[in-house]
C-alpha cells in the first residue's frame, strides 16, 4: 500500500480540523437555539472518516449514522448547503426536511445519515450490490458504531455481502458506548472484528490514528474495488461528549469523560506532522483560520436562507 503524499498528509489535517471546528460551531448554534432537534457530535473521532474517505471518489457511496457530520464532510459535501440543512432551511441539501440526522448529498455519494441504528448498513450494501450488478468499479462504505453490531441489520448485511463478495467496507467506529451503555453491557466480546469470522470476512482493527486508518482502509478499499469482497474495519476511538449534545452523562463518571477527552487524534496528528516537519507552527494556525472562515461563511449563508413554507410540506412526496 502506498504511503500518503505530503499534500495528502496536510489534507488529512485540514479535514480533521474542518470536522472538529464544524461540530464545535454546531454545538454553539445548537445551544443558542438556532438549530433544533437532536445533535450528535463525533468530536474525538475525526480520524476515521478522514482516513477512509481519502480512498473514495465522488462516485463511491457512504452511508452514515446519527453521528455522521464527519463522514459527510470527509466525503466532500458542500459545507454551505450542509449547514443550510442543519439550520432547517429550504436551500439545504434535503430542503430542510432532514436536519442533522438524515443529511445526504447523492452527488457526493453521501447516501444519507440514518436515525435508525444499523439502518444504513444494508442500504450501503445495496449500493455495493448495484455497483457489482452494473460492473462499475464503485465501492461502498457503511459506517456504524459498535452498538449497531447488536442489530440484525448488521449481521444480515455482512452475511449477504460475504456470500456475494460485494465491493464494500464495513467501518465500525468503536467508541465504547452504545448511547448510554458501555460495551461490556451489550457485547460478550471486546473486539468487533471477531464478528467477521462468522462471515469468513477479513477484519482489521486499528487505533484512532489517521495514518494507520488510511493504510488499513486503503487495503480494504482496494480489495473491494478488485472484486475480492468486503472487509470489516474497526477503529477504536473515544466519544468525548455524551450520546447527544446536552447529555448530562450521569451514566458514566467524570473520570471516564476526562480520560476520553485526554485522547485527541488531532493533537496527536499535529505532533506527528510537526515532528515529521510536514508543517510548521504557523502553518497549523493558518489552516485552522482558513477552515474557521469557511465554517463561519457557511453559518452566515445558512442563517440568511429562508425556511420552507408549510405549503411545501408534501412537495415531491411521490415522484
Amino acid at each position: 500500500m502506498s504511503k500518503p503524499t505530503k499534500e495528502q498528509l496536510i489534507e488529512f489535517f485540514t479535514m480533521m480540523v474542518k470536522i472538529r471546528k464544524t461540530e464545535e460551531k454546531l454545538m454553539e448554534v445548537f445551544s443558542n437555539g438556532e438549530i433544533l432537534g437532536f445533535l450528535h457530535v463525533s468530536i474525538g473521532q475525526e480520524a476515521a472518516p478522514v482516513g477512509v474517505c481519502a480512498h473514495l471518489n465522488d462516485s463511491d457511496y457512504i452511508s452514515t449514522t446519527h453521528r455522521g457530520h464527519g463522514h459527510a464532510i470527509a466525503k466532500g459535501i458542500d459545507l454551505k448547503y450542509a449547514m443550510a440543512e442543519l439550520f432547517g432551511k429550504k436551500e439545504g441539501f434535503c430542503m430542510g426536511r432532514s436536519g442533522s440526522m438524515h443529511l445526504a448529498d447523492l452527488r457526493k455519494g453521501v447516501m444519507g445519515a440514518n436515525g435508525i441504528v444499523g439502518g444504513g448498513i444494508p442500504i450501503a450494501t445495496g449500493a455495493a450490490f448495484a455497483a457489482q450488478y452494473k460492473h462499475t468499479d464503485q465501492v461502498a462504505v457503511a459506517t456504524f458504531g459498535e452498538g449497531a453490531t447488536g442489530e440484525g441489520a448488521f449481521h444480515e448485511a455482512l452475511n449477504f455481502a460475504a456470500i456475494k463478495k460485494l465491493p464494500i467496507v464495513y467501518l465500525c467506529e468503536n467508541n465504547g458506548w452504545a448511547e448510554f451503555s458501555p460495551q461490556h453491557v451489550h457485547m460478550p466480546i471486546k473486539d468487533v472484528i471477531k464478528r467477521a469470522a462468522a462471515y469468513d470476512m477479513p477484519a482489521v482493527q486499528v487505533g484512532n490514528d489517521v495514518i494507520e486508518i488510511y493504510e488499513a482502509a486503503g487495503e480494504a478499499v482496494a480489495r473491494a474495488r478488485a472484486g475480492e469482497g468486503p472487509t470489516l474495519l474497526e477503529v477504536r476511538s473515544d466519544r468525548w461528549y455524551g450520546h447527544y449534545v446536552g447529555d448530562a452523562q450521569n451514566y458514566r463518571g467524570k473520570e471516564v469523560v476526562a480520560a476520553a477527552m485526554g485522547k485527541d487524534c488531532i493533537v496527536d496528528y499535529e505532533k506527528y506532522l510537526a515532528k515529521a516537519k510536514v508543517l510548521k507552527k504557523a502553518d497549523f494556525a493558518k489552516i485552522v483560520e482558513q477552515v474557521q472562515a469557511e465554517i463561519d461563511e457557511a453559518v452566515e449563508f445558512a442563517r440568511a436562507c429562508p425556511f420552507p413554507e408549510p405549503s411545501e410540506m408534501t412537495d415531491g412526496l411521490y415522484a
Partner: protein
Amino acid sequence: MKDIRYIFAVKEAMEEEMERDESVFLIGEDVGLAGGSFGASRGLYDKFGAKRIVDTPISELGFTSLAAGAASCGLRPIVEIMFMDFVTCCMDSIVNQIAKMRYMFGNQYVMPIVVRMPEGGGLNAGPQHSQCLEAWFAHVPGLKVVMGATPYDVKGLLKASIRDDNPVIFIENKTLHAMKGAVPEEDYVVPLGKADVKREGSDVTIVTASRLVHESLKAADALAEDGISVEVVDLMTIQPWDRETVFNSIAKTHRLVTAHEAVKQFGFGAEIAATVAEEILDELDAPIVRVGAPFAPASYSLEKAYVPDADDVKNAVMQTLERSF
C-alpha cells in the same frame, strides 16, 4: 387473449419487465433455484441467471434494505416476501427507510422498488401465515399499496408498479394464485390509482379489493336473484385510492358497503367510510356497513369462519338496505 393462472400472470409481468429493462431484478428467499415458494418465479432463474434472480439468506430486513440501497443507485428491485406476515421483520426497511428516503433527502432520490407479498387465509396456516396488513402500509406517507384480484389485473398492475418511480407494496392473495383468467398476448399496464367497476348496479355500492372482489361478485349474483342491484368497485390501488370512481358510484346508489379480508377495525374500509362520511354524507341514504375479519388472529381450525365470504358481504348489503336515515 390467453387463459393463464394468477401466479403465472405475476411471473409473466416480472419476466416481461426484466426483458424490457436491464435494471429490473428479483430478490428474495427461494426465488431462484426453487422458483419461489408459490412458483411466481418458476423458470426465471434459468432464463436470467443468479445475477438477476437473487436468492438470499432468510433475512427480510437485510435484503429489503439492500434493495432500497440498490434502488437509490439506479436499479429497479422487485423484492419477494414469502408470506405477508414476514414483512413485519422488515418494517424498518419499508417504513423508516424506503417510504421516507425520497422525502427526507429532499427529493434527491427516486425509489423504484416493488415489494411483493401474498396475504390472506386459505391454507389453514394459522396466525402467522394468514394476515392481511395492507392498512399498515396505506397509513405510511410515501408508499403506494396495490392489490390485484384477477390474472389480468395482477399482471397489468405489477407491470405498472415496476415502471413506477415510487415504492409500491404489491399484495397478492394466496387463494387467488390458482385462479385462471384471460390476459392479452401483447404488452399492457393497468394504471395505479384507478379503481375498476367490476359490476355495475344501482342499489348498493361495494368498495373492495383482492379476494373479496370475488366474494362480492358472488354476493351480487345472489342478491340479483332477489332483485337487488349491486355495484362492485375494485379499488386495486388502496393508496392512493380512486375517490372519483368511489364517489361517482355512491352518487348513483346512495348506499355503501366496504369489504376486505383484513380485520374490520382500522382496515382500509374504515378510511373509505370515514372519507365518504366526511365529504359526501348527504349522498348516503343509509349507514355504511363494513365487512372484515373478526378482531382476532387467524385461527388454524376456525379459518373458514374467520375469513369473510360472500354470505358476509350479502348480509352487509341487506343491512344497509334495511336501514335508512
